[in-house]
């Protein structure tokens, strides 16, 4: 099931909330587990078994690591088993076709289970942290399984580490304030996805399907800018919805996006974009490899590994690897000398630098093959035809959506709210207006969902 659907908002969610709120404390995690499995099975009626398998393995590995606290060989074996099973599943379902392709073989790849890259990473964080003695073991299977299958974050993140919710999974506050706050965040995310991402995405899906040899430079730029906003509002909208739903259930999930498009460097961009993924790779790959403490050569090597993996995590094909390495290169350049230089530039220029490089990166990300990406770059930079009537028409059709997207990507709105909140009248206005505005947004989103048009799920490759 996806959050941005009538079935979720008006049927699944009220049913779950009703049962969850009236159920006694002891049963709440069981209800989370059952609703999580139902939620997942709605979209993956067969692959839900894989998720259950992963849960069983990691729970058992966790118990073994805890039980044999003094026997390091047993602990190591249990951890190895957990990592092997999780990465093995990722390998089989996500990377087998790609890997076989490298060796010139063609195998019919299995369909990818939704969210597999999210939940395997989440439950691996548990066994690894337990091995590192950073967290306490979870003895209750239901509590652990409820964590893995927690429906708000299961299909598209944020990557919630066990560490983040280890206290809340055992006991947490549930109250009407959290419900209200969560509802607000959920609606904000829903509006980002349904009103902004889906609408601007329509433009990209139209341009993406064209023959790149025949489009004007303006059309190409308009198309990739549309995708730039689509993926941001879609992905961060999903994360907001997850955070909001978490709050309704009493969980505080980590922040996943923090105005990435106003970054002043690529390094900063990746500290603001999909934050939980970056921090996962930092904690479990970059630092264990030695991070930046083992000399220049090893630092460079580690950065390369992390960025190739980051790319590959987004999808099993070369364009994603190149996309990851592209950012790896830029970040290395920034670490070596570019960063100091950027700091001296006026903000306008450094923000533009970062934004344009990110936009150029999105071409690699979403045109499916490296060849297509280069055709697209040709249209963006070397098209003899600057503007055509199509570009003018599309610009006119999407002008307002673009303005809203640009406005929302910056901090203008939150600054405005802050200013209002500074005096009593402003606070009072917000107190009364916010719920009305949010209710209105929910109804508008409902209107867009009832007339089921373009409402893609973008993370099927992750």
């Amino acid at each position, binding site marked *: *099931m996806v959050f941005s*659907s*009538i*079935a979720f*908002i*008006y*049927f699944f*969610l*009220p049913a779950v*909330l*009703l049962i969850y709120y009236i159920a006694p404390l002891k049963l709440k995690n069981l209800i989370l587990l059952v609703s999580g499995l139902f939620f997942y099975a*709605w*979209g993956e*009626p*067969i692959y839900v078994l894989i998720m259950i398998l992963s849960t069983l393995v990691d729970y058992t590995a966790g118990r073994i690591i805890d039980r044999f606290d003094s026997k390091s060989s047993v602990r190591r074996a249990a951890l190895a088993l957990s990592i092997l099973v999780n990465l093995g599943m990722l390998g089989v379902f996500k990377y087998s076709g790609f890997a076989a392709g490298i060796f010139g073989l063609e195998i019919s790849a299995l369909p990818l289970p939704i969210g597999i890259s999210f939940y395997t990473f989440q439950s691996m964080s548990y066994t690894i942290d337990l091995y590192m003695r950073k967290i306490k073991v979870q003895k209750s299977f239901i509590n652990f399984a409820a964590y893995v299958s927690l429906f708000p974050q299961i299909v598209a993140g944020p990557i919630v580490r066990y560490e983040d919710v280890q206290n809340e999974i055992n006991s947490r506050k549930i109250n*009407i*304030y*959290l*419900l*209200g*706050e969560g*509802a*607000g965040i959920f*609606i904000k995310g829903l509006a980002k996805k349904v009103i902004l991402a889906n*609408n601007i995405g329509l433009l990209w899906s139209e341009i993406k399907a064209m023959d790149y040899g025949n489009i004007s430079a303006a059309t190409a730029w308009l198309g990739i800018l549309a995708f730039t906003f689509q993926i941001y509002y879609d992905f961060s909208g999903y994360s907001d919805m997850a955070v909001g739903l978490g709050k309704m259930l009493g969980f505080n999930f980590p922040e996943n996006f923090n105005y990435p498009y106003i970054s002043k460097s690529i390094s900063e961009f990746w500290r603001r974009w999909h934050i939980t993924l970056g921090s996962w790779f930092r904690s479990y790959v970059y630092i264990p490899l030695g991070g930046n403490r083992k000399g220049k050569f090893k630092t460079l090597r580690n950065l390369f590994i992390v960025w190739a993996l980051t790319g590959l995590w987004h999808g099993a094909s070369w364009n994603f690897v190149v996309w990851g390495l592209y950012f790896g290169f830029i970040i290395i350049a920034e670490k070596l000398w570019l960063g100091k230089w950027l700091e001296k530039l006026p903000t306008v220029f450094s923000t533009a630098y970062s934004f344009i490089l990110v936009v150029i990166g999105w071409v690699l990300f979403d045109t499916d093959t490296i060849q297509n990406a280069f055709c697209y770059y040709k249209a963006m930079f070397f098209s003899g035809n600057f503007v*055509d*009537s*199509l570009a003018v*028409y*599309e610009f*006119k*059709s*999407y*002008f*307002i*959506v673009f303005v809203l997207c640009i406005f929302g990507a910056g901090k203008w709105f939150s600054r405005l709210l802050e200013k209002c909140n500074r005096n009593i009248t402003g*606070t*009072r206005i*917000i*107190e*009364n207006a*916010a*719920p*009305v505005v*949010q*209710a209105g947004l*929910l*109804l*508008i989103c*409902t*209107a*867009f*969902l*009832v*007339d*089921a*048009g373009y409402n893609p799920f973008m993370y099927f490759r992750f």
Partner: protein
Amino acid sequence: MENRRKIKMAVIFMIIIFLFPLIFILSRKEKFSPEENRNLKEFPEVSPESILEKKFMEDFEAYLSDHFPARLEFIRTKMDMERLSGKDCINNIYITDDRLIEKLPKPDYDEVKRSVSAINNFAENYNTEVFISVVPTSAGIYQCDLGKFSPQINQHKFITDVYSELNSNITAIDVFNTLASASDEYIYYRNDHHWTSRGAYTAYKHIIPKLGFSAVDESLYDIEHVSDDFRGTFYSKCLYDGPKADIIDIYSCINGFSAQSVIMNDGLKNSESDDIYFREFLKKNDKYCVFLGNNRAFTDIRTNVDNGKEILIIKDSYANSFVPFLIQHYSRISLVDPRYVKGSIEDFADPNDYDQVLFLYNASTFSQDKNIKTLCRNCKFN
């Protein structure tokens, strides 16, 4: 303060997410949406297979949105928001001040090629005169109104390209300029994809001399307005009621010939009527069906013209409002709609029995059609 806001939010949120499902569960489920002219989803079948294949889930979600409370109001709200945001194309329908227009979809050139060669084979294979007319849709004639819209297929070029691939024993009749020069007249419906009776008559005046007759003058026709509140397929797609509703006219030739019997076959069974007009459809949503009723595989019309001339028309629904004008010229008019023919055309009619065969299509159907090529299954020259 902050907490008061959160409580308000919580209450409003819970009211909204509980109210709609409650109304949904209590309300009666309609089977048909006349505004959109389509059947609404019924509750899907539950079975292990349908669940494992996710068909149940997909159908269930469609069922939910099809019967959601205040559904049409929500859809209209969405359209209004889209128009406010500067879009003038909603669900592929372009909104102009005067009319709704559907842009010609990108032709499926491979299929078009197959259709053309099937028609060529057809003409080789059967011993009869073959004619073709591919008629522009309103998007072709009102292209200028679409000037500010995104680039589109040039329909006249599409039509002449098709004609240039036809063998010389086929007479291609180009009505584009005829219709274009009548663009000030009411030749296309404003809210539906068909041409009006006047549009069909305009084309008829151009086509009928090629078929060997002289056109009956308009003054000899009695024009009856049978409906003035027709909103057809374009409206159903975008639910925008800005343009005026459409008028449907029936042309009856004063003291002329008339249809004696209409035999219809939907591929399963025959039925019969004594009129080519089906006025019961005027009470329904899809009022264009007043012309020859619903689309079907085969229609056979006998008239009281006694010249013994017989014509076979292979066609889409554009022909339905064109046929009334042929009644004055032929003893027998047979219509085959290949989209509804399961087997071969010869199950219904042998083209060799007819003096003339006319392929009559609008450019939109012709550009996408996958059925014309099956006509010539039994042809020698395949």
